[in-house]
């Protein structure tokens, strides 16, 4: 019986999801024994050419991480989709757009202008931008296109399962691999993580008073953070109420509030809207002026509510970027 074939691939990502595989440590050797890794760019010299030569559907599962930002990434994931029985969106960027998805507050033009013309260190009097094609005396040099809008993986190809997190934790990766190898999978489209919110599993849950009230919003660098108490109850914004559990509460154990990398639970379509409503429900104000003052004290609302999920949100991107 040949071992099932597995591929790992990266798009607009940071390499953290590749590290999440390396971070299986001793267990990576077990994975290597159980499956046949046919493609893993960071570590092995297998080629997409080899993948192209395989029969369609011959890869049992492809774990794809990263958002879709460049033309080349779109082409590659479409190929992997054809060759794979299952595709797992691996990590926040593939799942929701992730941190690179914050670029949807801008567009190609404004990003290029800043990076290549405006930063104080750049010396570019001719105002050169990278080109899809550059003619040289010897021949043409091609580059993939940079899209205006960052997309999630499932806005690009059909996705079977989602591994949430930035980066996904070891236990969820191993559980996903095991479920795939033993064919004990939940319904297609499932997020392979608990269904509860982070608040339900938060080690500070018991510190919460009967009713948490927000009177005054603080920022983490401005106060000494109590290591036992609910962050919201300390006036610190925490994405816990709008975020799925399963991360191991690692940021919270480091005495820092959640920023939402696991995305919303199954009941929620738009993580930012959910967080906004959760915060609003905690406001302790008696009139509109007070409410306005409290709302104004949340700096960077869009970047806070949608820190990891802007491309997956109802809005997807900022419209009409100047």
């Amino acid at each position, binding site marked *: 019986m040949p071992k099932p074939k597995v591929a790992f691939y990266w798009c607009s990502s940071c390499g*953290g999801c590749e590290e999440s595989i390396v971070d299986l440590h001793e267990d990576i050797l077990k994975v290597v024994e159980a499956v046949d890794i046919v493609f893993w760019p960071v570590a092995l010299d297998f080629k997409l050419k080899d993948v192209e030569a395989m029969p369609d559907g011959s890869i049992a599962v492809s774990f794809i991480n990263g958002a879709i930002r460049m033309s080349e990434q779109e082409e590659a994931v479409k190929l992997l989709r054809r060759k794979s029985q299952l595709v797992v969106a691996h990590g926040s960027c593939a799942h929701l757009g992730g941190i690179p998805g*914050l670029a949807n507050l801008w567009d190609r033009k404004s990003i290029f202008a800043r990076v290549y013309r405006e930063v104080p260190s750049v010396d570019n009097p001719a105002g050169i931008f990278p*080109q899809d094609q550059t003619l040289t005396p010897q021949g043409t040099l091609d580059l993939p296109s940079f899209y205006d809008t960052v997309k999630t993986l499932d806005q690009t190809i059909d996705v079977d399962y989602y591994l949430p997190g930035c980066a996904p934790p070891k236990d969820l990766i191993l559980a996903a691999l095991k479920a795939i190898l033993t064919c004990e999978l939940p319904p297609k489209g499932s997020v392979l993580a608990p269904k509860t919110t982070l608040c339900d599993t938060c080690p500070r849950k018991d510190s919460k008073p009967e009713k948490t009230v927000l009177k005054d919003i603080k920022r983490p660098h401005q106060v000494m953070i109590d290591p036992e108490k609910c962050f919201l109850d300390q006036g610190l914004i925490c994405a816990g109420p709008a975020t799925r559990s399963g991360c191991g509460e690692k940021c919270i154990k480091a005495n820092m509030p959640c920023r939402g990398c696991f995305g919303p639970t199954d009941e929620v379509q738009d993580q930012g809207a959910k967080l906004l409503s959760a915060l609003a429900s905690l406001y302790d104000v008696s009139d509109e002026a007070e409410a306005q003052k409290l709302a104004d004290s949340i700096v960077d609302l869009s970047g806070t509510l949608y820190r990891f999920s802007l491309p997956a949100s109802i809005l997807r991107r900022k419209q009409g970027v100047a």
Partner: protein
Amino acid sequence: MNSQRITINPITRLEGHGKIEIFLDDKGDVATAALQIPELRGFEKFAEGRPAEEMPRITPRICGVCPTTHHMASVKALDALYQVAPTAAGKAIRELMYSAFMLEDHLLHFFFLGGPDFIMGPQSAPAGRNILGVIGKVGLEAAGKLIRLRRECRALIEFIGGKVIHPVGCLPGGVSKPFPEEERRRYKPTAEFGVEFVRFVLKVFHDLVLGNKEYLDLILGDIYKHKTYYMGMVDERNRVNFYDGLIRVVDPDGKEFAKFAGQDYLQHLAERVEPWTYVKFLYLKKVGWKGFVDGKSSGVYRVAPLARLNAAEGMATPLAQEEYQKMYAALGGKPAHNTLAYHWARLIEALYAAERLRELLEAPELTDPDVRNIPTAVPKEGIGVVEAPRGTLFHHYQTDSRGIITKANLLVATQNNQAAMSMSIAKAAAGLIKGGKVSEGLLNMVEMAFRPYDPCMACSTHALGETPLVVRVLDSGRRVVRELRRH
């Protein structure tokens, strides 16, 4: 116009994505070669509007292999922005995390990325030229030790930072929680083991690499050599330091050319844009951009392990210092221009990181509960600098009075080496490909010109990816006359 070209796409065993285009002349020799980086994510733009204190949690997503380094440069930029120094414990805890990170990251490169070329052989079968082949060759016991050391180092980073892939624990003025005595006791054996393990790896390197005449000739030969300026951070005695200090630049003869504080970077460094790649090229402003050439009149400089050792006068710990002297004796003096010696320098730095880890775990202030100073100044501008595994990293933030980012500029480690990497590839290609003759082994040897730099294209351009490696030789009618694949 002759349009014979060789395309290597993708280059492999690095963090990120790149392709090499080699153009041949009428004789089939190399006319020119370009290293193209086909990605961008634009962190400098989407940082705008974010609260500055969130930057240490946002910028690590530039790179998941070296998130700790972005976390650290970012928080140091916040220290400067808010004019707040970390407490003694805050600084010790940060540096402890940083030393553990440098140690495990350098070992990752040696075993997973660059090392397989030597451990398995430059022209060995590609299917085995990877970590799995390395495990087969060094044995399960040694592999088990590597895995154990990385696991323990990464557990330490996780304890301090909350997460090892994208830490969250640093804040302006210090860190988010104290480091307890029991953790000190827990990790002391890790540091001891780290020192012992890196010494073992150095022995492997001496036996397998330096003991092999063919490899030694490669290291010392001209194909992998460039005479450039070198840059790295040094302490008050001009010894290598990763976390803090002044930035020292030496010229190709090893003479001090500049020494400056990180916040003065704009006086010394500038970036060039080329239309055929998404990455920008850093060069020394006072020397100027003279193209992709080396020598004293060209502003091209190099960073990362060998460059740091060249730019310094020694190592701050005894065992690393001993090895430092050994290396320069073997390479025929300072500065060493041999690109492949980066692999050796990286192991010397790993040894320093392990020794520094051991020192910090003895520091009395490490477990002091006073871990953070709350900032009070009105923010305006801050610059933070650290030595990343892959070179000097600058984070530069400007904010409004509420501490919301109005402008951000990031000079990322691998960018410093971009010009030199292009040159290294072109030179290796020219030295290896003659009369249109190419082979899979030779192609890997072209790639071996960039691997010593341990490039991180994710950092350089903030994206990653991979496509197949195919080499096509085209005739002037763009017809494929030969196609090669590395299997």
